[in-house]
């Protein structure tokens, strides 16, 4: 019974995210529809369904949502949607839903259909790990929002410099609003990422890192932190705003995505969530820095 409910919630969530994605894309492409009200609400409904799905699925499967790679991905997508719904009104970035909805949908589907099984080198379980994974998840969710705002900023800035101030330019949020939103999302995500890095480093001292994938994940994790730190520092100290900050944010997010990809693509792809999650209790975890 719970299986069926979990399945139903999964597909409902996907359908709502898909509807929100179409709504936002239609608005951006043709200027049609009222995304100011319906779009964020759809993402909100999607986030609620998503949370219910995670709860039900974790009860069914009896796994912690922050263990394994698939559930954490799904949780990150849900956290991103929730953060968007909470922040969009205050930061006036409703249209960022055009990125958030498709990303949430992609992450949801990826958590189900993409990714590796048990990590061969998963050797040690630790109390630090759930904490490490949780902070990284929320950090990544906020960086996704920051990079969405940065991407929108670059589009707006390009249109403004090219003096094409009709059409899409009118539908996107104001330039400075996007810059400010990007900065705030980064500021909010950076402490979480820092905690993730510290906890990951502490955990890494307990295990032996040898496989190239492990080393790469660690390297890209540290690079992510350094890039984000540099963007924030240069903004405060040297006035790196606007385009430069946007490029830096997107680069930092890109490195975080690389870390995720290294997790997802490391071993054979299971077909079902059950198969994926069956590997999780053996010690598979999502951590940006750790091998």
């Amino acid at each position, binding site marked *: 019974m719970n299986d069926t409910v979990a399945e139903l919630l999964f597909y409902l969530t996907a359908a709502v995210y898909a509807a929100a994605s179409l709504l936002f894309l239609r608005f951006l492409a043709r200027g049609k529809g009222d995304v100011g009200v319906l779009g964020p609400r759809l993402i909100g409904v999607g986030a609620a369904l998503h949370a219910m799905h995670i709860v039900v699925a974790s009860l069914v499967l009896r796994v912690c949502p922050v263990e394994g790679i698939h559930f954490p991905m799904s949780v990150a997508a849900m956290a991103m949607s929730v953060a968007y719904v909470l922040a969009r009104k205050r930061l006036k970035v409703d249209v960022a839903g055009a990125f958030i909805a498709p990303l949430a949908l992609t992450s949801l589907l990826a958590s189900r259909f993409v990714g590796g099984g048990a990590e061969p080198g998963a050797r040690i379980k630790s109390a630090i790990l759930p904490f490490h994974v949780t902070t990284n998840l929320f950090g990544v969710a906020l960086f996704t929002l920051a990079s969405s705002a940065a991407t929108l900023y670059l589009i707006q800035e390009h249109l403004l410099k090219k003096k*094409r*101030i009709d059409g899409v330019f009118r539908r996107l949020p104001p330039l400075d609003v996007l810059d400010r939103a990007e900065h705030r999302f980064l500021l909010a995500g950076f402490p979480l990422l820092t905690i993730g890095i510290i906890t990951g480093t502490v955990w890494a001292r307990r295990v032996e890192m040898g496989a190239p994938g492990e080393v790469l994940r660690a390297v890209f994790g540290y690079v992510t932190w350094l890039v984000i730190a540099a963007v924030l520092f240069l903004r405060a100290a*040297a006035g790196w705003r606007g385009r*430069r900050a946007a490029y830096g944010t997107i680069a930092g997010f890109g490195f975080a995505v690389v870390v995720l990809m290294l997790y997802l693509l490391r071993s054979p792809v299971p077909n079902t969530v059950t198969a994926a999650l069956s590997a999780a209790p053996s010690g598979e975890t999502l951590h940006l820095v750790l091998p």
Partner: protein
Amino acid sequence: MTLPVVVIGLSHKTAPVEVRERFASGSDLLPGILARLTARAELEEAMFLSTCNRVEVIGLPYLSGTSEEAARLASHAIRETLRDHIGASHVEELRHYLYERTGEDAVRHVFRVAASLDSMVLGEPQILGQVKDAYDAAVATGALRSHLSRCVSRAFSVAKRVRTETQLGAGTVSISSVAVDLAKRIFGDLSDRTVLLVGAGEMAEAAAKSLGQQAKAIRVCNRSFERAANLAAHFNATAAPIEQLEAELVMSDVVVASTSSKSFVITRDLVKRVMKQRKGRTLFFVDIAVPRNVDPSIHTHVDNAYVYDVDDLQSEVAENMKSRQAEVVAAEKIVDAELREWLRWARALNVNPTIVALRAKTKGVLVAELERSLGTRLKHLGEADRAALTQMIESATNKLLHAPTTRLKQAAGASDGNDLVRAAQHLFDLPAATPGSSDPTLRAAVPAAETSSAKLAPAPADESEERVPH
């Protein structure tokens, strides 16, 4: 062709701002340009209009041959004057940017310009004041004297009708309000932003009005500190001398430049220095001056700095135009109606000399015959009888010519009226008269009531003043 009025110029529709600014002239240069225009033998009357979005010469040719030939010569004279005005080497240099209207089209154009139907921002009120200023300057220098003056005066009436009988001017977006809208698209809310007005003229005042209730603070920087202080006092703003421009730029977010300077007031080097001090905070320049005040290379070469001039705001204005099409149709109908009235009046100018000449000839013949008889067979008549005979000739002339005069006047309003005029001239051996000619006999042939209206009061201070008797 009736009166072969010629309009040659360039506007936001035909030339970019970097071309228009070469032609733009302040009020200080107007007398010189008008003197050069009226010195041309090909031009009877002329007016020079220079605004942010258009520069044009309205001329009435000196009629020596056919109207078409006169218009062609006048056109060449105007083009040469414009060429000299900007120091171009050849008239051909201007060909791509200049438009030309003649005759009826020219008059329609003048009416549409005054009624703000040809403006970048449809229905904007400033253009009428600018046309009036140009009119006053031309009258003051003697460049406008008669028929062309009447044409421009009529344009004021057209503009007044359009303003009062349509909603074209209601809720119009001015260039300033368009700029404010764009600033909001960059900054979002302006309530925590500082706006700097560089210049303290009319455009700066309009910008201050648009921004007044939205910006956190308004600052005014002007070469004349006194004018800056006056403007600032009206809008609860802060005035600063031009020497403090760099410091003012550092603390501002939106800069509206509208000085009459002939060179860039805000240069790229200046903005680079400013952006360092601002730590990269966005700076938005709206350059509504022509010639431009802000170096356009700032837009492409300085990060987080954006420069928009009047031409760049056109797409915003296009949105304004879409929503005003119904009003435009109504306004165009008024222009058409006024144009028909004008043409009727102008065609009458063709008939009047012929009517007067016919009367003069008829009366002359009769008076001559009477004089001869009074000198011979009727020399015994007393003063009273002679006066009665003179009165009889006057009455006979009136009765004899009543029907031809009526027919000619009726024909004046028709497109083939000239045929009847030519027939009358041929039958009675009258001179071929043209209304724009400088021939004093023909000038005298035009009834005083037809021309006196245009001689010549200054432009009314507001539209409530009527200047054209109908």
